[in-house]
């Protein structure tokens, strides 16, 4: 498996310059894209296809901070299986229990749960922002100390984030089951 950082020729950090990433991506695309190999032997065309698909996969992964973090975790040998993000983070147990009750009521047509759900949506959205800040802090710390403990913390934070994200999504869908028109920014 090609190393994404090496392929893009950028330093192996969790925080990275998106401008540099894009610049490197465009440069390499001009070099590796199959369009450039149309008149070359089949073997070279095949290689261009492999390389440019790896390049696209690398760019897609590294430009998104969360996917980038996951990638680094896997590269460093951490297990980030699906199962982990389904466990309720212990500190959220109580809130999640109440939220699920309210969601049940709402789904069964009891609109009285709406204010509670709206409150929950706000509170979990705030929580999401907090986790994002925490993750950002861990990025900075890891780039400075490259410690596995930091990565372990990062994994916990990422799972927590994923869990809260799913909750927010579920509340959001329950409150507005129909297709939500795009809000003007």
């Amino acid at each position, binding site marked *: 498996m090609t190393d994404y950082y090496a392929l893009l020729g950028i330093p192996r950090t969790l925080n990275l310059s998106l401008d540099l990433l894009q610049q490197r991506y465009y440069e390499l695309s001009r070099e590796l894209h199959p369009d450039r190999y149309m008149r070359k032997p089949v073997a070279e065309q095949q290689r261009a296809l492999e390389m440019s698909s790896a390049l*696209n996969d690398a760019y897609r992964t590294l430009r998104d901070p969360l996917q980038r973090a996951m990638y680094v975790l896997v590269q460093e040998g951490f297990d980030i299986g699906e199962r982990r993000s389904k466990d309720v983070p212990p500190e959220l147990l109580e809130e999640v229990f109440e939220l699920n009750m309210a969601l049940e009521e709402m789904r069964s047509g009891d609109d009285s749960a709406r204010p509670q759900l709206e409150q929950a949506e706000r509170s979990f959205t705030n929580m999401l922002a907090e986790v994002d800040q925490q993750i950002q802090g861990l990025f900075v710390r890891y780039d400075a100390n490259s410690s596995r403990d930091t990565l372990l913390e990062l994994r916990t934070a990422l799972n927590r984030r994923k869990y809260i994200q799913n909750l927010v999504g579920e509340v959001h869908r329950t409150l507005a089951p129909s297709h939500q028109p795009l809000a*003007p920014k």
Partner: protein
Amino acid sequence: MEIDFDTTDHIVGIDLGTTNSLVAFMDLTGPRIIPGADGGKLVPSVVSVTENGSIAVGNPARELLLTHPERTVYSVKRLMGRGLDDVQEELKLFPFRVAPGSESVIHLQLGERTFTPPEISAFVLRQLKQNAEEYFGVPVNKAVITVPAYFNDAQRQATKDAGRIAGLEVLRLVNEPTAASLAYGLDKRENGIIAVYDLGGGTFDISILKLHDGIFEVLATNGDTHLGGDDIDNLLLRIALEDVATEWGEDLSKDSEGVQRLRRAVIQAKEQLSFVPVATIDLEYRGKKYQRQINRELFDKLITPIVDRTLGPCRDCIKDAGVSVEQIDEVVMVGGSTRIPLVRSAVETLFRAKPHTELNPDEVVALGAAVQAAILSGAVEDKLLLDVTPLSLGIETMGGVVSKLIHRNSTIPASATEVFTTGVDGQTNVLIHVVQGERELVKDNRSLARFDLKGIDPMQAGMARIEVRFLIDANGILSVTARDQRTGKEHTVEVKPSYGLTDEQVEQMIQESFEKAEADFAARQVREQRVEADAILGAVEKARHHDAYFELTDDERAAIDKSVNELLLVYNADDHHLIAAKIEEVNQATLKLAENMMNTAVRGALKGTKI
């Protein structure tokens, strides 16, 4: 940079449209449409099998649609890569006759023969190829063909198959809106974000791109492969048919010629309404007249639901692109249906920007395809398209649930790797069901193919580790390879496409098309010889009343009779050589007669009298 167009093959760009198709190429002066023999740039995507078995394409076929609707097919793009179940709605509206055995690939009955949609499209492609060859004076074998951005794998594969059947190596399938942006981007801004709104005859696409120093990076695309001008035509046609039923007291919908004439009248009115506030649907048929005025206000009201159907995909696309409406610098309009004022105003309202309409919306896609052809030939080096896959790719997992491997709007080429194992002791093959779409359940998505991994060594369940790599190439077409992780051995993957032709079927069609082309050519030669035979037989019959005929000897007259009888005997044979030989014998036998007639004519002329 060396720009060298001469040493490269002529790679043409083709817009294979629902309603019209075009072929273009690029030289030092820029991209340009290649006209047909009749001087027209648009080749209607209509194919007709004439009564003597020859194939008519383009404008002649469009005329035959009126007189021989049962032998003619149009808008076949709507059937590309689709199964019978998918097209039930279209079949209600189009006079397509589906032949038996059409479950996974539709077969259309045209006269005595049946054709699949790729074969029909191949006739259109062959016509475009021929137009280009006549233009250049050299064979053309390579092409870039455009497809709707929202085409799925099967629809793309069907388009590629059509190219192969037509004798074209399809170097690249390019998404239509992306191609259009290439044509527009030529002398436009260097950097910025643009949206391309493409409403054609049968498909709708919206793409949002980032332009950066010659790189055209698609951020997101969305669309509907069953939405376009055809839907407007069918809507108006339904109303007109009801009108006619009331006014004439007869149901014209069962009369396919009547329907096609009314359809053309409706299209004329629709097209006029883009430029004038009032138009008339005007039909004169079998001595009866139908006229109905329709003003822009009513037209707008009627088509609003259709135009509105394009707005949802636009909003989703903006969202997926991760941009706000304000960040979009330009909106480009593509496709004939964007001439409709209501479409323009709807786009203007949504994007809060006046859309670009400088380039001919019918031509811009083909021009862009020509630019891409020049990129592939190496003639253009400073531009590069980075396109995306429009639909997520996933595999079926337990309980009919989809596990997504490559998400929609991923830049292509894109790949994903998944490790599979066996579920039962001693199992030697694994079946992988690949689907395309955004829904959670397999049944709500588009089945692409079933891949059978064979030759796994028998072992305990769960021990095998087969690494399967899914790769979407720059055409948006999927390929699958498999490798045993323990042995490193490549596995054979047997593909069963859910819709579409197998490789063997395509090969067979290519073969048949060659044979048919020979047969078609032979048939034409026979017809030509018969025309010549008719001419000489007619002349001989006329000459029998001439004085010169009586000046011949009995033997000479007998020789003429004999040669004429022999020509009549072979007249209906399918051998043009034989007919030609007998014509020559008649010529020889009548030499003296012709000479005598000439002399009589000269004598007559000298006497000043007419013979």
